[in-house]
């Protein structure tokens, strides 16, 4: 008991994690921290090392250097948490010959103290009607639901999800997003999610890390990351040339594009769009429309990738 108290409660702390496949480095001194109660999204290009990172975290494959601590324990000791840390992998990872009900009963045997019954988690994930179906006969989406259901049997404190939205229909994605939000809000469950589905992550994540070229290029609270981004302002006006001359030189304003007739694209750094509007109107420019593009996860991701693009030779076609 005293040993448990001494453990670090931080769900995940990764320091200088390095991993290579042969001579090819995949992870280069990767640092990542998931705070207690956070829903942390890990995004990256195909082949950026998201799944490798997840598998190293969970002790599924060895790493060459670095330090990983999951709630105070090393990856190979995760079982000592007895179900407080669980994972849902990119493939459903279930016994194909078992039924949904048997799969959940089997998962109960793996939990030290199941906090929910198989029937309860079936209802939570909307798979009660498939209870007697064998896993091999289920669709990918329902297999993923079953995989998530078994993870929830022991009331985990930290859940690691690798590509959780793959194979889910729109309703299934909404249900999963709601479930993650509810577990995070009501039970304080921390999450680490890796996904390509940036809009879904944006809806749900409190923290984001962008994995690029084997390193975490950007990491932090979503609001802080978005505030740090330049916002774009699209100005639809009658005289782009004059408008350009007016805004040129204004502090915090940069002209991004003026090549389209009637459209001026600006990048704003802490400048209120109302100020631009006022200046242009004062000088007699007719403004037809003013559109502010809010920073998004997609723009953040694109900005990170654009600063250090992959060489053409590394792109597999």
């Amino acid at each position, binding site marked *: 008991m005293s040993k448990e108290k001494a453990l670090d409660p931080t769900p995940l702390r990764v320091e200088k994690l390095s991993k290579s496949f042969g001579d090819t480095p995949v992870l280069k001194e990767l640092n990542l921290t998931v705070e207690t109660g956070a829903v942390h999204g890990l995004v990256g290009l195909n082949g950026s090392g998201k799944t490798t990172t997840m*598998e190293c975290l*969970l*002790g*599924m*494959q*060895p790493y060459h250097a670095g330090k990983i601590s999951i709630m105070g324990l090393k990856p*190979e*000791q*995760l*079982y000592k948490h*007895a*179900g407080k*840390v*669980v*994972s849902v*992998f990119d*493939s*459903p*990872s*279930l*016994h*194909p*010959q*078992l039924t949904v009900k*048997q799969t959940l*009963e*089997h*998962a109960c*045997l*793996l*939990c*030290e103290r199941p906090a929910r019954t198989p029937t309860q988690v079936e209802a939570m994930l909307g798979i009660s009607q498939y209870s007697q179906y064998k896993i091999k006969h289920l669709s990918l989406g329902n297999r993923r639901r079953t995989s998530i259901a*078994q993870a929830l049997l*022991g009331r985990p404190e930290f859940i690691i999800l690798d590509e959780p939205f793959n194979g889910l229909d729109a309703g299934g994605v909404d249900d999963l997003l709601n479930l993650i939000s509810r577990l995070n809000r009501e039970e304080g469950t921390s999450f680490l999610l890796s996904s390509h589905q940036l809009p879904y992550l944006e809806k749900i994540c409190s923290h984001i890390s962008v994995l690029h070229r084997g390193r975490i290029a950007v990491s932090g609270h979503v609001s802080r990351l978005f505030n740090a981004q330049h916002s774009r302002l699209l100005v639809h006006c009658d005289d782009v040339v004059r408008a350009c001359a007016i805004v040129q030189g204004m502090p915090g304003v940069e002209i991004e594009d003026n090549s389209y007739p009637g459209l001026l694209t600006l990048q704003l750094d802490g400048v209120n769009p109302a100020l631009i509007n006022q200046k242009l109107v004062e000088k007699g420019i007719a403004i037809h429309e003013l559109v502010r593009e809010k920073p998004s996860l997609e723009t953040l991701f694109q900005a990170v990738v654009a600063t250090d693009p992959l060489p053409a030779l590394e792109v597999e076609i």
Partner: protein
Amino acid sequence: MNGFKAAFRAELFVMLHNNAARFLLVMPAIAVIIRAIAVKLSDNARQAQQSLSGGRSFEDIASSNAWGHLVDSLSIGLTLLSLSLVAYAAWSFSSDRDNGALRHVVIRTTNRMGIVLAKFANVFLLALATLILLGIGSALITAILWDFGPIVEDGYELISSAEIRQEVALGLGLAILPIPTALAFGVLVSVSTQSATQAITTALGITLAVDIFKSVLGSYAYYIYASFQPSLVDRSYLSDVGRLVRGYSDVMVDTQMLSLNQWIPLPQMLVFIAAALVVVRFRKL
């Protein structure tokens, strides 16, 4: 230890709901029952033919005695059992790694070594249950179709029932000893290979290759556990017992071989398990 217990229970749950395991449990017993019925029908046809042409020979007397058929049934059943369970042991870990189910056990219940031991314990349990069914099936079918009794020729008792029973028990015991080693070999292959298909083909391939080529090794073959198993090229003591209980008096008992039969399999089993425990630490799951 708690983790191992939970992993063992979870693996047992999966095995009990696995059609392949259920099939392997009854397959050797059913095979020997079907074979015994076929042999009985064939014997009856031959005896009917001979009754038309003359008296009974010594072979007929020996063939109507249940002991020889019991030993044949056990020998064939154990050959099937060891081959099928080596394949099952090879499949056990590798298939769970292929479908990813192993990962949940590692994360929630026990360490990698605990899983290997839980897998081995379950396959061992399946072998034990299969062996019991095989023993019951063989004994029942031979008792139904033939009569147990001493080997008698011209009113003279060549071998008493008690002696036969003793030899059958010894032969069976010595034939069973290498089975856990064979299962441990299957588990080692399962842990070491890249996929379930590769594991099964490798385990069966090596087992059959050793069986076929063991005669090339001469007396060194007795330092391999597989030499003591009933197999396709059978050199086990049980095959000698099969001839002994049919009244062939030329069976020579090699005491050194019996001693090796007792002492070789267990250390080899421990070596295979230790190797599997080492290999599993470095495998990607």
